[in-house]
Every structure is written in C-alpha cells, then in structure tokens.
C-alpha cells in the first residue's frame, strides 16, 4: 500500500477527533500525492467530513499529526490551511448565492491595488481573471457581476473548483460534490477533477457513489466508524469489493440478491 515512488504532498497520521463524548475519528491515516485522486469512501457518519475538516483547518485534531511536504504543521484556521495549499470545496457551502461570481471567486483572497496609502479591491483584474478561468472550465458567464444564485448546481461546483485551482492549491478536497448533480453535470465535475489531477494537484474526493469513485480515483480509502478500513490502489480492487467494504460487509447479501447488482 505505501507506494514510495513520489513523496506525499500531505500526510495525516493517526488523526483522532473527539466532540465532547462523541469520538468522530479514532486514528485515521491518509496521504495524498501530487497528481493523484484519492477517494474517501464510507457510510453516513463514518467521519469523512470530520476528517477533511481537520485537514482543512476547520477542526483541530484531538490527537495526531499533519505533515505537509514532510514537515509537521498545525492549522488553527481555514486560512492557515489555505496558505499551506489546501483548498476545500464543500457541497452546499461552496458559494454565496447573493454575491456575484467575481466576488465569490475571490472571496477571502481579494486582489488589491494601491491608490496612495489605501488598498482597494482590484475589480478590473478580478473580473478578467474570473472570466478567463471560468472559460477554461467551459463556463461562459453572461457577466462577472452575475449573481451565483443564477447558476446551476454543477456550475457552482465548477466555480468553486476552479477558484481553488487558480489559487494554487496543491491539494484539492471535494466533499460530495456530485451527490445532487445530474449525469451530465456529474460528468463535468469528474472531468474537471481529471483536468485538475493532470496539473499535478492532489485531489481528495469524497463520494458515496462507487462508480464515481472508480471513474476518477487512483487510490481508495474506506472509513468506518471513525477508523480506516484500509487503502487500495486503482486496479487492486473491484467496484463490488469496494462497495462491500463501504457497507461494512454485513446484511447486504440478501438485499443485493433481491435488488440485483451494486447500488
């Protein structure tokens, strides 16, 4: 499993996270290498979201180490993680619908130009870059002032992803980006992941859908009850095995029988 031909961009070792009496993570280790898509799978409540929130500085791990390029780091805010090159796209929380695409795109990292002693938001540049980056992802905006609320779900995901990529993320984390999307939108997002990966960025992709995972994943880690069940390389594991692993292997046999095939 530990394939040492490239050093991991980020490595999380034995992460534990407790919320009061609840132990959400109980020793999870995952590493992401440049240019790979690492899929994180697992049941509802397995701790996937908690894990990536730890990775992106939202939660502080109760125990465990985060290594970036081999150096140990501690994030106290999402900003720290962003500065270390970790960008995260949350399913519902990616964008603010009432704000324009440009404002959303640059949110938190607005470009500034100085006028005398003051620094202003540089809209000219911001708009230009936004339009260009959107075009690269195949989205043609009416205008950069357009409110994000007028975009479709898939488009919003794409804006969020291209934002992350543009800001030089070394690791891009996507939490269930495809769950509400139609087939075409899903294909778009998966294609985007593929593009991003080819740029040498490490991607962490969370999904419940084994097909989606198999389509773009290079490695697969399954979480269960806050623990790693194991990590497999692409080709070492089949969709059916992965599926079984995700569901914890129990009780499914009979369902599968009556329903036919993987769900």
């Amino acid at each position, binding site marked *: 499993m530990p394939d040492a031909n490239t050093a991991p961009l980020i490595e999380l070792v034995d992460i534990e996270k407790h919320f009061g009496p609840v132990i959400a993570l109980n020793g999870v280790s995952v590493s992401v290498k440049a240019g790979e898509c690492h899929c994180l799978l697992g049941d509802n409540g397995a701790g996937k979201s908690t894990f990536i929130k730890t990775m992106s500085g*939202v939660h502080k791990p109760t125990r465990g180490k985060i290594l970036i390029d081999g150096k140990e780091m501690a994030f106290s805010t999402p900003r720290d993680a962003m500065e270390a090159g970790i960008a995260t796209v949350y399913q519902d929380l990616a964008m603010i619908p009432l704000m324009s695409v440009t404002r959303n795109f640059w949110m938190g990292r607005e470009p500034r130009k100085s006028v005398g002693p003051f620094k202003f938001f540089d809209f000219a540049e911001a708009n230009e870059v936004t339009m260009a980056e959107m075009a690269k992802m195949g989205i043609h905006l009416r205008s950069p002032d357009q409110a994000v609320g007028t975009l479709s779900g898939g488009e919003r995901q794409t804006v969020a992803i291209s934002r992350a990529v543009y800001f030089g993320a070394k690791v891009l984390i996507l939490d269930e980006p495809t769950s509400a999307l139609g087939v075409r939108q899903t294909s778009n997002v998966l294609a985007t992941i593929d593009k991003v990966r080819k740029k040498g960025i490490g991607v962490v992709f969370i999904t419940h859908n084994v097909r989606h995972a198999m389509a773009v994943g290079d490695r697969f880690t399954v979480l269960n009850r806050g623990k790693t069940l194991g990590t497999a390389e692409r080709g070492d594991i089949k969709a059916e095995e992965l599926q079984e692993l995700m569901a914890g292997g129990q009780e499914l046999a009979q369902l599968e029988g009556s329903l036919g095939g993987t769900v």
Partner: protein
Amino acid sequence: MAETQTAAPPEPEKDERVREMSRMRKALIRPELGAICGTILVFMFFLGIASDSGMFAAEGIINWGTVSAQFAIIAVGACLLMIAGEFDLSVGSMIGFSGIIIALMSVQWGFPVWFAILVAFALSLCIGALNGYLVIKTGLPSFIVTLAFLYILRGLTIFIAIATTRKTIIGGVKDVAEGDPIAWLFGGKVFSGVFVWLADLGLVGTFVAGPKAGLPVVEGIPMLMIWAIALIIFGHILLTRTRFGNWIFASGGDAQAARYVGVPVSRVKISMFMFTAFCATVFATCQVMEFGSAAADRGLLKEFEAIISVVIGGALLTGGYGSVIGAALGALIFGVVQQGLFFAGVESSLFRVFLGVILLLAVILNTYIRRMITGER
C-alpha cells in the same frame, strides 16, 4: 428548434442568457433602485404641495438636510452591520448613554471635553465589541442580545444620571467646550463664508433683528452633515471597493461558507458591531456639542429609524445584500418626509402612518428588484 421556440430552459442559466438585458436596464437594476425611485417620488410630492412653505429655501434645505444627515449617520452603521448579517437594537440606548457620559465627565467631573469624548468613544466601542462577542460566542440571534443591551444601557444611563446629578438632563457642555481642540469637529459649522457670499448675492435670506442682524440665516453647513457625508463615502467605499467589503457581504450571505474559505467572519461581525456603536457615538457627540446638553431620553427608538432607513434603502434584513448609498437615500426619504409633513402642515400624528406605509411599499418594491438581480425565488 423546438426548444428555442418554446423557451423551455434545459438549464436555468442558459435561459437567463437568452433574455440578454440591455445595458441601460442592467445599470438601473441595483439594490438602491427602489430608494432612488422613492427619493424622486418624495421630492416631487413635496415640491408639489409644499414648495411655497420655505421647504426648498436655503434654510429649509439645511433643516431637512440636517435631520436626514442625523438618520444617515446611524443608518450607515446599521447598514453595514445588517449586510454583515446582524442587527443592533441598542443603537438608540447607545446614543443616550454616550451623550450622558460626555456631559457627565466634562461638566460634572471637570475633565476636558476632548477627553470625555474619547472616553465615550472608547466605552461605546467596547460595548459594541461586547455585543458582537456575545452574538458570536453564544450563537444567539442578535435581536435578543442587543435587545438586552437596549434595556441595560438605557437603564444605566438613567441610573448614572440620576445617581450623580439627580437630574436626567445635564447641561452646560457648551461652556466647558469653549476652545476645546476637538469639540468643534462635532458641533461646529463650516463654509460660513460661502453663505455670507450667497447672502450678499441675495440668494440666502439674512437675519433682520438682534445681534445677528445682517448675517445670513444659514450660518454654515453643520458638522453633522459633514460627518454624514464622510461616513456615507467611507461606508460605500469600504463596502464596494475593498477586500473588507467583500468579507462583509460574505459574512452576511453565508457565514459558514465564508469561514471555510478563510474569511475571518467573527472579526468582521464584531468590527461591524463596533462600527455601529461608533456611528451612534458620533450621533450623540454631535448632538451634545451642538445643543450643549445631554439627556437620558435621547435616541429613543432611533434603532428602528436606522433599520427602517436601511431597509427602505434596499438591504436585506437577513444579511448579505444591500448598499450604503441606498441606506443614505433611505435616511434622506425619512428626513424629508418627516420634516416635509411639518412644512406641508399635515397633522403630525399622521407622520407615523405615512412612515409605515412607505416602509411597506419600499420593501415590497425592493424585494421585487432583488429577485430580478439575484434570480432568487
């Protein structure tokens, strides 16, 4: 093709793109559009019914201008705070509190006026920060937290005033403010020369009796207006042209989303609470310096007036959307209607009825405009 004919949208955004908006229309459709229309209507109305009452002579303009400027000062603070997703019901009590602090310290306890003003600002900024901290920390709605402070501050104001002076009004600030290095910043008047010149040209009336005989009836632009304009410009630029402004929108639009991309939401919200308190204190200081006294009942219900101005100006009560220019226009409408009804000789109790009706019409119009812009449903 069938699809284009029936205009059935395969994806909503494509459909939007079909109805390309004209440049003109696009320039018009903005948060403050409702307020702009309202302002035009209100002015037309009063030009129609009260043009011969002196409302639009220099003196009349200064009159409703000052009142509007007063509203504008607190509206700017309330506007930015509301866009950042919170609101503050303690503005009115804060006005009373700051005023009493200044008067008490300078008149009663003999501190220099500039020091009293600084202490008032420091105190109110602390209270604003405390408001914000409580809202952020407890996750309670700001309605509740600031409602508590509405009561606490008003109670303290009355208590302090009575306990130290046995009165709820403290006068004599003008005397002690004589020659103070910063008092004029709040109570003075500027551009007096211009008005003397205008009076010489006969464009502005002059006093005919008393010691001031011969001087123009308008002495100058009160600092209150300068403050209002400065705050409006500051607020507008802050909101639309800076990084921090983007953060304000983001914090109000979706605090969690903003937090996740690294916007320091707590800091933004707390600063906005502090800014609101700052504006309230500017209001109070101008009032104390202009009139020379502070009273415990100053600022009653001003919080609602600020919120109404902001909402008339097109901001969304739930945050994330609005404009400082809109809020300023809302304050202008408020001021003009209030004073205009006096000029027009309308029974003053009807003012509230008008105000309520204007508020309702304005928000309905604004909601409609907002839906057009943001594609909200």
